[in-house]
């Protein structure tokens, strides 16, 4: 089994995470923000799996399952919220959701 160096996984993961973070910050569409969030989750998952493989320890992989489950649940709640907000405000622009400011 030809081994891909560990650093490759970590660099890829870092790039994915950064892209996700930038996406969350600069986009105004909550759907896109969710996708960016998902990108950050998966960056973290990739790191988990890489380390799990490198050290021969299954804990990292178990963590990944947990993260996936939580992410799925979070998306379900989030999408429901977005639908509800859209119904009342006819817009899902995240910058307009500021009625609780100050």
């Amino acid at each position, binding site marked *: 089994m030809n081994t891909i160096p560990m650093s490759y996984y970590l660099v890829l993961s870092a790039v994915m995470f950064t892209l996700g*973070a930038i996406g969350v*910050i600069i986009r105004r569409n909550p759907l896109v923000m969710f996708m960016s969030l998902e990108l950050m989750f998966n960056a973290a998952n990739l790191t988990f799996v890489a380390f799990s493989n490198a050290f021969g320890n299954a804990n990292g992989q178990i963590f990944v399952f947990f993260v996936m489950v939580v992410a799925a649940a979070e998306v379900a709640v989030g999408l429901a919220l977005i639908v509800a907000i859209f119904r009342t405000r006819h817009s899902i622009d*995240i*910058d307009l*959701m*500021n009625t*609780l*400011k*100050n």
Partner: protein
Amino acid sequence: MENATTTLYFHLVPLVVFLPLAGLVINLLIGKKLGEVVSGTIASLASGAAFVVACLLMLSLRSNPEAVVVPFAEWIRVGGLAVDWAFRVDTLSVTMMLVVSGVGTLIHIYAIGYMHEDVRLNEDPGRFTRFFIYLNLFIAMMMILVSAESYLMTFVGWEGVGLCSYLLIGFWFEKGKEGTGNAIAAKKAFITNRVGDFGFLVAMFMIFLQFGTLSFSELAHVSAPVGALGTVVVAGIGLFLLLAVTGKSAQLPLFVWLPDAMAGPTPVSALIHAATMVTAGVYLVARSAPLFELSPVGPQAVAWVGTLTALFAATIAVGQYDIKKVLAYSTISQLGFMVAAVGMGAYVAGMFHLVTHAFFKALLFLSAGSVIQGVEHGHHHDPHADHYAEFDPQDMRNMGGLAGKMKVTTAVYIIGALALAGVAPLAGFFSKDEIVAFAFGKNPVMFTMLLLAAFFTAFYMARQVWMVFFGKARTTAAQGARENPLVMTIPLMVLAVLSLVGGALNLPHVETLGKWLEHTMEGLHPAEFNWLVAGISLAVAFTGIAAGWFFYGRRSWQPGQSDPMKKLLGPLFTAFERKWWVDEIYNALLLQPYKDLSAILAEPVDQKLIDGCANGLGRMTGWFSRGIGVLQNGLVRSYALVILAGVAAILGYLILR
């Protein structure tokens, strides 16, 4: 009583407290439905039953004269302090019980008649029952005071009678000068008494500190502590107890509340402010005799305070026009005699005067009440009187010539006045003479002052009798006065008989009371009957009466006339009239600075400083939160950026550490 198998009734002693309480509860629950006569009778019976119990106790003590302690309930157990609810039956406490319940019962009966009129004159008949509830409560509290076995239990009664005094002075709380006069008088009495109570409390603390107990039985045999600190503490106990006495027994400098206390209905003045409650101070000194004997400071201070008060108050009584105020200052003066006596160590003489004074002063007050109602009756039935004009039925200048209209009242009043003036062989002569004779051997200055006070006593009583009962009626109200019903006059007659023969309690060389009290108080000095002193004091009494006749009897007082003494004494009489300006001096020295201080504390300190601090804190919090509220700008993406920056910062710190 000779046979040794006499039944002993000591275990009945809790009843002296609980019988009046039972009367109170009955009247409290169903008194309003019972009607005036029944409710008054229940109250009188409750007090009378307590008197019967006291008599049984006396009989038991005669066959078995040593003090008996009857435990009743466990009360306080804290650390080294153990105070139980226990009753002490000894000759001293039973003497007080007999006086309180005996005189109290007579006054209850009298009050049935008096309050019947009084509630109608004051236009609130619903308050009749309330009066008797308070009166029963007072008897119960007074019984706790005198039957207590420890200082703490005495203190409970001490406070309780103070409360009853407050409630009864303010019985017509919405009446009086400007509609608040009575309420203010009640408040004054209560607050002045608090000053004395403070002394009682501190004395109790010191007693416990020094001797480790508050029980009378255990304190009876304590010995004087050694060392400088012990001496100071023992002297302090005496002085603080004296402060308590000056409060309750209206001595200098705390006597100011008693004259104002006359705002209460007259039976209250007779029961509480003449016969019983105010003598609690005298009882306290007699009860604390073992402690007072430990240091010469306390007794000497007590004797001087008493002597000064006796003379001081007697001079004020000369210049008063209100029939009850004269008697009030007379009471203060007579209490001064008693306090002086117990201070000098003449405990028997002091207690003797306490008992006889209870008889004749209760008699005088009740007769004064009878006079007032007679005059008020005349005023109300005068068709020509202006019923809206201010008319004072207590002002002696509005009276005169009542002797023909109120025969019984006049007769008993004169008996009471003669007894108070110290004319032999009435009650007051023997008791007062015993005090004066004791002072004769002890201290010539005190002796002279007490004699002078006795002279004034005879003089102001003569002045009062001639102003009220003789001469011509000066108002139509006095002209229309009529005698009161039997329910009021019978107690007067009983008290008059007691005032006539009360001296027999402790006749010279027989000394019934002295031998009786000997069982309780050790080392009593036997009273010496001194013919010289007796002659002098009798001469003084007659001179006083003669002087009173010379100024007030020879020519009868004319309407609108000023006091004949005014020409003779000038500014001195004005001082008597204005009560030596004591109220004004207290007002200027204590009340006004206090009010000024309160004003300062209220306006600049409380409203500006303290409220300013509180409001300033609130305002600062507002500013601060408005400042950081800017951060909550409602932009989710900026929150995310802050979170990211935070995570980066923490991670950076963890990595670069």
